[in-house]
């Protein structure tokens, strides 16, 4: 829906899932479904001590906003929120949050899924691993699977 509110933030601090859902749904009674996606830092069976997230300020926000607006148009979302953290992130901590609201459930699922797939492949963020043994695990490589996940949205 055009005019549907889009909230995009790129920030060092953690976010509050419930507060973001409330902000997006408060004082309206036409939302039937809200899907949230939280991406968290895994410890990779204890081998990872932290992730360091680098981003391209300005472009990161712009790309994510563009993706959210595409999702709103394509799936008829009533609202979309995307928050991406940067800096040092420890295992168990949040990295990214996506929230999609719609009158019906499948659009909310598809909208959040679409936003995540495109965010992963086109929002300018890069992850560096810090290994638990003190060494730098180096930069995370992009996965072909993420490109495939994105490309399935252009099939239908």
């Amino acid at each position: 829906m055009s005019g549907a509110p889009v909230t995009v933030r790129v920030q060092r601090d953690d976010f509050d899932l419930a507060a973001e859902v409330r902000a997006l749904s408060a004082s309206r009674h036409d939302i039937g479904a809200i899907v949230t996606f939280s991406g968290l830092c895994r410890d990779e069976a204890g081998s990872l001590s932290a992730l360091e997230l680098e981003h391209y300020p300005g472009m990161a926000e712009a790309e994510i906003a563009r993706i959210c607006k595409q999702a709103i148009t394509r799936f008829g979302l009533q609202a979309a929120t995307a928050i991406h953290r940067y800096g040092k992130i420890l295992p168990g901590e949040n990295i990214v949050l996506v929230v999609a609201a719609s009158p019906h459930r499948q659009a909310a699922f598809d909208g959040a899924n679409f936003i995540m797939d495109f965010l992963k492949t086109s929002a300018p963020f890069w992850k560096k691993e810090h290994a638990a043994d003190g060494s730098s695990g180096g930069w995370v490589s992009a996965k072909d699977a993420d490109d495939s996940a994105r490309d399935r949205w252009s099939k239908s």
Partner: protein
Amino acid sequence: MARVDLVYFAWVRERIGKAEETLELPDSVVTAGDLLAYLKTLGEEYETALEHENVIRVAINQEHVDHHEPIAGAREIALFPPMTGG
């Protein structure tokens, strides 16, 4: 000659050894691909950073572009590896 701000991210930044610089580009640099080829003539650190040209992503004025696209009008050009956020 066109004056343009270049910004580098992740291992492109680390290998070039700086996060940003301003360069005067010769008129022969027309496309994003030309820019990559030109930068590789500037020193070993650029050669190492941009060795696998095809994986380097380019953004002009904070929008993704393909290597064959012209850079005319660019104020800021960013070079970076494939993205791994999310």
